[in-house]
Each structure stands twice: as C-alpha cells, then as structure tokens.
C-alpha cells in the first residue's frame, strides 16, 4: 500500500471508530430495553470501555496520520471529499487528545451523579444516552476539520450543537435545562449568520461554480480579476459573527459560562477544549479564502481579528476578577484564551500564527486538566463528603492533596506562568506582535491592552485558587482515585512539556505540522 492509501485508511478509521461506538452503544441500549439478561447487563456495564477504546483508536490514527500525510489533500469518501492537509490533521489531533482523556472520566462522573441527591432526580441519568451523545459529539467534532465542502462544514458544525446540547441538558434539572436552552438558542442564531456568510462566499466568485474549499482556493488564486471583494468582506464578517458565536467570541459569548458550567465535567472539558476550536477552524478556512480574495486589501481581515481578539480578552477580565462558581470562572478563561488566539491570528506575523495555533492546543490541554481535576473533586466530595455545595470546596490541598496540587499547577499554567505551555505560546504571540509592530505602530497599543488584561486575569485566578486550595477543609482527607490521578498527571506532563519544547520527534513531529499549518494560513497551496 502506498502512502496515499495508508492515509486514506487512517482517515476512515479515525472517523469510523467514534461512529461505530455510537452505533454500538445505540444497539446495546436498544437491547437493554428488550432484555434484562445478565449478559446484556454485562455488556451495558462496558459502555465506558467502548467509548475509551474508540477514542484511543481515533487518537492513535490521528497521530499516525501526522506521520503519513496524504500525497493529495483530498480523500474521496462516497459523494464527498475529505480535505486532509496539515491544518485539518492538527485540529483532528487536538479533538482526539481531549476526547480520549475525557472518556476516562465518564464512569466516575456517572457514579458521582447517582450518589449526589439520588432522591431528587425524577429519573436517573441514563448511562447509554450519555455514552451515545458523547461518541456522537466526538464524531461530529472529528468530521468538522475534514469537510472540504463549505456547506457540509456548516452542517458538521451545526451537528456538534445537536450532540452537545443534549449533553449539556442531560442532568435534566432546571439549571441544566436553562443552560441547554441558552446554548441552543444563541449558537443556532449564530450559525444562521455563518450560513449567510457561506452563501455570500458563493457570490464572491460565482463563475467558479463551486463550494468546495480546495477548488475555491485554487480559483481565487488564479482568477483574482473575477472576485467581488465587497461580497468577500461581507462573507467574512458574517462568518466571523456566526462561527464566532460558537467559538465563544465576545459579545456572543454569553452561552459559555452557562454551557460549560452546567455540562457534566467530561463534557465541559470537550466544550472548552475542542468545541470552540472546531468553530475556530471553520473561521480559519474562511480566513484563508478571504485573504486570497482580497489580495492587497487583506489587512481588513487581520485588523478585524485583532480587534475581536482584544475585545474578547478585555470582556473576560471583570468576570474573572468577580467571585463566581469555579467552572464558570474556567469558562470565562475560555473567552480570554479564544481572545488570545484571535489576537495572534490578527497579528498575521508567521511567529504569531505559529503561537496562535500552538495556543489552541495548549489551551485545550490545560483546560481539560482543570475541568477534569475539578470534576474529580466534585465527584469525590459527592461520593465521600456527601456534598455538592461548592462553598465547601475549600482546603483542597489538605483534603485531596494530589488533585489539589494538579489544580494549583494547572491554574498557574492557565494564567500563563512559566515554565508551562500557555506561557510559551503567549510568548510566541507577543514575539510576533513585537516583530509586526515595527511596521504597524498601532500594534503597540494593542500589546499594552493585551499585557494589562493578562496581568489582571492572573491576579483574578490566583485569588480563586487561594480560596479553593487553602481555605478551611470541610472534613477529613478523602481517597483519590489513583487511575484517574494517573491520567491527570499525564495530562499535566504534557502541559509542562509543551512549555519547554514543541515536539519534533519521529513519532510525532508537531513542530513540522504547525509550520505546515502556518504556511496554509499564509496562503500557500496545501
């Protein structure tokens, strides 16, 4: 088999694993309704295993795909083409790493939820339903980066809403349903704008007669005279608002704290770590096309991104400084970091672009660590201290010292302390900004706002962490599940590792993948 066939096979396996897991869990749930035989129950109790194995297969396929990139960027699949270039592989890798890590925590979450207030729930959480939607959510997020057709890309992004909305509201209590309502209404309204932007793109180069990203890209590169620049601008603005709503950009971010705060904690890790990046990926595909369409007038796009990034960053500050539930604080950090990524993209300098893409991965890893570690605390407090009251989540370093330590270190990473990963990518973005500011003096002002915001945010999170880690503990020390701690520790190792080096090993050459992605962002043919 040649390299092209290998990569095609890997793409099919990568998508097929969560797809089959979704079907399998649907089948098991159906079987469980028909029969209560012991073997059916035995299979049902392995749903988490099925999910984890599917996520692991998908993740390993993504890693392998980094090493066996296809010779052609398009891989046919029935009536559609998958686009498989460095940029899509990078985002698929990002989705899969968080999905794999989150999948380990599902059974812990379900167990703790059953323990907490069992009598108050009308119906217990249906494990099959949770696993089904989790795998479906994973599948839709893996599909997004591979969509070459821009209308199908839009459909894939919308499908992520469907799967995740059910997960956000799955607890079925008032808060969860309210969060699911807001999430669906706001993001559905947003994606209407995205489709309108897609539709306007069809009018940018009507003679091209295509909505395939790769064909449009080639057409715009070779026929600059046939481009309607007004429609290109309008298209990008609508796409930025539309997918930006889903990516959590201010002022369309209002679903973030509710959605992240009320979702089950493994889902919060996915929402914050990768769902926002899936929408960002869609923006990036349009960003590349718009740069090509606008040619010398492309500064408009970068300025818009720069302003949007700074605005999101600025809006996050007061919410992070305020006293609030910890998961909501983490959600506002997502707003901050999406702002930082957009700021990096807006600078447009290759180093800043590299930093922005790396920041997407770094944020995903760190935020997954924080949500999962805090979820472990919630779960163990529910199981052992018998409380779900967040006011009592204090003195963690004494009650759960290992998890507490990981939250402390993860928190420091999240606010950009050295030697962790987020510091490194923020440093790269700033390096790019300084390089670009020599040609664009207005950037100095932007850099000052950026530095001021991240400093205030640093102070805000340190305050919240102080309360969480050092306050008076509610009781004796509780047992920490060693297996899950091990997973968190590995996640923390990656947070630390990416702070000192961008892997360029034989088994995973992330540095090369990022450089290739930056070239695509700069308009080089994939």
């Amino acid at each position: 088999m040649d390299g092209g066939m290998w990569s095609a096979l890997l793409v099919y396996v990568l998508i097929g694993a969560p797809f089959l897991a979704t079907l399998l869990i649907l089948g098991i749930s159906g079987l469980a309704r028909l029969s209560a035989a012991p073997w059916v129950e035995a299979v049902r109790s392995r749903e988490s295993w099925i999910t984890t194995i599917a996520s692991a297969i998908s993740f390993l396929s993504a890693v392998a795909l980094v090493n066996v990139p296809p010779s052609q960027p398009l891989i046919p699949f029935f009536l559609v083409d998958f686009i498989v270039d460095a940029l899509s592989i990078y985002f698929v890798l990002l989705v899969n790493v968080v999905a794999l890590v989150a999948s380990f925590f599902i059974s812990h979450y379900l167990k703790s939820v059953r323990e907490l207030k069992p009598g108050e729930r009308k119906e217990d959480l249906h494990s099959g339903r949770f696993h089904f939607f989790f795998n479906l959510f994973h599948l839709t997020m893996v599909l997004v980066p591979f969509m070459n057709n821009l209308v199908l890309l839009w459909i894939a992004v919308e499908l992520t809403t469907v799967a995740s909305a059910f997960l956000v509201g799955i607890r079925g209590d008032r808060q969860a349903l309210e969060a699911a309502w807001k999430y669906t209404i706001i993001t559905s309204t947003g994606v209407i704008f995205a489709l309108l932007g897609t539709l306007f793109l069809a009018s940018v180069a009507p003679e091209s007669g295509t909505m395939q990203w790769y064909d449009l890209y080639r057409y715009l590169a070779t026929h600059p005279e046939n481009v309607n620049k007004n429609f290109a601008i309008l298209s990008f603005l609508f796409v930025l608002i539309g997918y930006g709503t889903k990516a959590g950009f201010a002022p369309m971010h209002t679903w973030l704290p509710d959605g992240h705060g009320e979702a089950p904690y493994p889902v919060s890790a996915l929402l914050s770590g990768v769902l926002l990046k899936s929408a960002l990926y869609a923006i990036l595909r349009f960003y590349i096309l718009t740069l090509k369409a606008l040619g010398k007038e492309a500064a408009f796009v970068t300025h818009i991104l720069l302003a949007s990034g700074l605005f999101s960053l600025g809006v996050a500050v007061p919410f992070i400084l305020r006293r609030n539930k910890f998961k909501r604080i983490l959600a506002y950090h997502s707003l901050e970091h999406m702002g930082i990524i957009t700021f990096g993209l807006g600078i447009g300098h290759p180093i800043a672009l590299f930093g922005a893409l790396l920041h997407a991965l770094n944020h995903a890893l760190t935020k997954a660590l924080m949500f999962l570690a805090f979820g472990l605390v919630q779960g163990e407090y529910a199981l052992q201290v018998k409380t779900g009251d967040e006011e009592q989540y204090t003195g963690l370093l004494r009650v759960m010292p290992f998890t507490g330590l990981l939250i402390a270190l993860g928190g420091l990473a999240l606010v950009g302390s050295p030697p962790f990963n987020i510091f490194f990518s923020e440093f790269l973005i700033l390096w790019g900004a300084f390089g670009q500011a020599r040609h664009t003096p207005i950037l100095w002002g932007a850099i000052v706002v950026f530095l001021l915001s991240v400093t205030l945010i640093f102070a805000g999170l340190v305050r919240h962490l102080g309360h969480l880690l050092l306050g008076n503990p509610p009781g004796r020390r509780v047992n920490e599940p060693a297996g899950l701690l091990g997973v968190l520790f590995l996640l923390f190792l990656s947070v630390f590792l990416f702070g000192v080096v961008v892997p360029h090993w034989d088994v995973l050459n992330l540095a090369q993948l990022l450089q290739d992605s930056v070239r695509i962002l700069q308009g080089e043919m994939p």
Partner: protein
Amino acid sequence: MDIIKGLDILFPMLILFIAVHISASTVLKTMIERYKQQAFVLAAFVIFTALTSASWAIGAVALLPFLMGVSIKPILARATLVTSEPLELDVRKWLGFVEEAELTWLEHGRLRLPAGYSFILDATLTTLAFVIAYNLGSALESIEKISLAVSLALLMLGLFVMINNQDLLAQVIGLLVSEHGLFLAAIRVVRQKQLAIVLAVSLFFYLALTLTILLWVLPSLRKMSKSLEIKDQTQLKG
C-alpha cells in the same frame, strides 16, 4: 413582463411587511399566525421563482416552507403544554394541543420596549438592510438587490424579535423569521441553482434539528420554572 417584475418586488416586500408585523405583535398567537402566513407567502414566491426560471428542482424546495407553515402551530403547541403523553401521529390529538395552547399564547407576547420604540427600531433595521444591500451588491441586478435587502432585514428583525420579546416561544419565532431571510437569500441571491437547493435543504435540516432540541427542552423548562417568560429563567447568572 411587467407583471413578473412587479411580482418579483411584491413578494419580498410582502414577506418583509409580515416580518415587521411579527416584530410589532404583542400577542404570541398573532406572532405565530403571522409566521405561518409568511411561510406560505415564501412558498408561493419560491414556486413563482421556479416558474420564471423554469427550474422544477427549486419548485420542489417550496415544499419546505410550506411544511413549516402547516406544522408550526401543532409543534409549538406541543412544546407549550406540559404533558407527559408520548408523541403520537394522531392529527386530532395535535389539533387538540393547538386549541389548548392558544389560550396560553393569548396571555403571552409582551415586548420589552414600548411599541413606538419597537417600530422605530424595526424601521431603522430595515433601512440599514437596504443600505447594506445596495452598497455591497453592486454585481447584483436590482431585483436581486431587493431580495438581498429583504433577506438581511429578516435576519435582523428576527434577531430583534428574540431580544425584544419576553417569551421563550417568541425566541423560537425570531429564529424562524431569521431562517426565512436566509432561505430567501439562498433561492434568490445565489446564482448557481444547484447550490441554492443544497443551501435551502441544509437550512431545513438545521431547522429540524434545532426545533427538536428546543422542543425537547421547553416543556421541561416550563414545568420546572412554571413560566414561559425569559425573566423567570434566571437560575444561571454572572
């Protein structure tokens, strides 16, 4: 030819007029009725477009807004009522839901802003839509510009309905009005007819999914909060 040109302008303007009426309504029942009318006018306009462009495929797409027009009342009625009955395809039962829900709809639909301010904002948004369409759509013919302007106006008015109304169901109607704008743009502004059909079908696929989620959440939310009003859904703050 003049009649065709006249209808080309009349249909979008009628759709726009109904959207303004929806936005100004202070009773939920009226909003839903107007939405239904708008869906039928849109379906008629799509058929008219299919006839003038001799495209049967576009004519088939008219079925989508028509189906929405027919089914919107029973769907929203089922979502309004707090019932534990399983979903059944019994037409009489669904009509019964509508009768019962209409009493609730008559009591809801209040606006946040006074009617005068709302009207001024409606007019401003509509004007803005026309200004944008006429400035950006230089490559379009004048008839297409009108459709583009109306599409943008529907999008903005739909958003305004979502913000200016105090009810959860009004938010759904606002979303549906915006979706009509997008549908109109897909059919009238996109010149590649096959692409227009793909866009229109995608749109209804999206709508079906979104409505499924919202209608799954709404009855439970209403049951727990004992209200259909947005102001009572304030468990999550800050």
